[in-house]
């Protein structure tokens, strides 16, 4: 399978199964509409005839030879033979966990999927005991995996920060005896950050996600405090301080764009201009009946904005500026192996989420959906049949993904989205797919600009 498109003055051809990325001239681009394996010794007469209206015969012949050469090198029209690997990770151990440390929040963001922090289930904080049980569960169920990941999530995790600290301490005290290493991450809205918390986070957390939407007016329209006022002025200085003291450890400022800020490149640059260089601004996830939701109607505007953002980033680089925009980051050479790419997120298989009550769900987005409760940490129950169901959700068991050119970049999308929008974890959600594919096309085009210079 190949995928080809024109963007930014480039003709780009992706060989889906090898991951090959090629920039081609117009002749090749046109010829690829007319040829496919099996190839012949020489370009067939009827193709020469067809193309010779626009191109020289010599050129056509040499172009055909180049296509055949890439085919023989297995980086064009290569075979899809990964399905046999899909069964490999069925028995994979649990190695990552999301701890919903507080089902409570001190913000009332309009687009929150957790219904202002409590997931529709009442406000609640996780106890240390449940936290310890979760750590033990991870230590005992992670098999030969050495790196364990624990994400403090919520609600707002800083509302239960003493427990966060004690869980970290407990995990550190036990990782040695199991020969494991914990990597902690935390996501926060910043309101409760103070010097102590900043120090602790910068010392213990290998990544921190700081929620802020971009421009003040955009942020303050959606991210409201309980009294109805925006939070921008409160959180910005704290985030700056945290980042300034963080050294070269990972962090992200992370925003959400909605129908209200389809000009979100402004928000990305607003964050950049405030001094942040690791930036993520992502499409809102929410019911399509919501006012703020992105629907099919908004897709052309979002596409145009992604292209605009790409141009602005390239221009900024020309002037010596630099930052990472998370959704355009793509590693063409050292990315994960094909096996990992068959089922991106390990949701319900090597990754689970735990609620303050100790309930286990496949991931943070399934929390509160009763039929997807997998067990309980405190009671020691864990539904292995359901784990298997999730392990079996990969790009070959999802009909749209199977035939999708983006499958080895996207890895089958988000099971939770699929369930929420389509009622089935195997059914791809079209709008998410459209946006994902567009981001990929743009990200690859930016690589071409960096390699070959601008074309337009």
């Amino acid at each position, binding site marked *: 399978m190949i995928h080809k498109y024109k963007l930014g003055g480039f003709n780009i051809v992706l060989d889906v199964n090898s991951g*090959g*990325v090629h920039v081609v001239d117009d002749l090749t681009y046109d010829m690829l509409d007319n040829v496919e394996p099996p190839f012949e010794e020489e370009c067939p007469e009827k193709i020469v005839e067809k193309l010779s209206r626009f191109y020289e015969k010599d050129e056509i012949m040499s172009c055909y030879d180049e296509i055949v050469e890439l085919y023989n090198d297995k980086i064009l029209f290569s075979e899809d033979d990964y399905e046999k690997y899909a069964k490999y990770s069925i028995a994979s151990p649990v190695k990552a966990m999301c701890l919903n440390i507080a089902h409570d929040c001190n913000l009332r963001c309009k687009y929150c999927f957790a219904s202002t922090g409590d997931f529709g289930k009442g406000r609640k904080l996780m106890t240390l005991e449940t936290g310890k049980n979760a750590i033990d569960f991870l230590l005992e169920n992670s098999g030969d*995996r*050495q790196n364990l990941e624990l994400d403090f999530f919520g609600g707002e995790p800083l509302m239960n920060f003493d427990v966060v600290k004690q869980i970290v301490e407990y995990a550190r005290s036990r990782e040695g005896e199991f020969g494991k290493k914990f990597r902690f991450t935390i996501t926060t809205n910043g309101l409760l950050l103070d010097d102590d918390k900043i120090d602790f986070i910068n010392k213990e957390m290998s990544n921190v996600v700081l929620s802020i939407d971009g421009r003040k007016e955009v942020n303050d329209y959606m991210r409201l405090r309980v009294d109805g006022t925006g939070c921008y002025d409160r959180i910005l200085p704290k985030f700056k301080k945290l980042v300034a003291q963080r050294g070269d450890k990972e962090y992200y400022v992370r925003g959400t764009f909605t129908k209200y800020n389809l000009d979100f490149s402004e928000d990305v640059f607003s964050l950049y201009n405030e001094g942040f260089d690791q930036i993520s601004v992502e499409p809102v*996830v929410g019911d399509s009946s919501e006012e703020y939701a992105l629907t099919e109607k908004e897709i052309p505007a979002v596409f145009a904005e992604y292209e605009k953002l790409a141009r602005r980033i390239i221009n900024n680089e020309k002037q010596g500026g630099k930052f990472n925009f998370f959704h355009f980051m793509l590693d063409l050479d050292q990315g994960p192996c*094909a096996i*990992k790419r068959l089922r991106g997120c390990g949701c319900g298989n090597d990754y689970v989420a735990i609620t303050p009550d100790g309930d286990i769900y496949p991931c943070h987005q399934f929390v509160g959906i009763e039929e997807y409760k997998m067990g309980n940490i405190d009671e020691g129950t864990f539904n292995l049949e359901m784990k298997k169901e999730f392990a079996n959700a990969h790009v070959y068991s999802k009909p749209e993904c199977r035939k999708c050119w983006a499958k080895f970049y*996207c*890895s089958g999308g*988000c099971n939770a989205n699929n369930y929420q929008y389509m009622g089935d974890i195997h059914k791809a959600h079209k709008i998410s797919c459209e946006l994902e594919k567009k981001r990929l096309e743009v990200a690859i085009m930016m690589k071409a600009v960096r390699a070959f210079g601008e074309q337009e």
Partner: protein
Amino acid sequence: MKHIKTMNKANLKESAQKGGCGKCQASCQSACKTSCTVANQKCER
């Protein structure tokens, strides 16, 4: 090559043969959580 320029050296085929060790970070593909999207992750072996 005159008509085609290949941008990457890696080949997924080779990665499959020695891959699947599970050392790399878990990832979330959803927009709701900036942990990590698969394609921008690194192999950790």
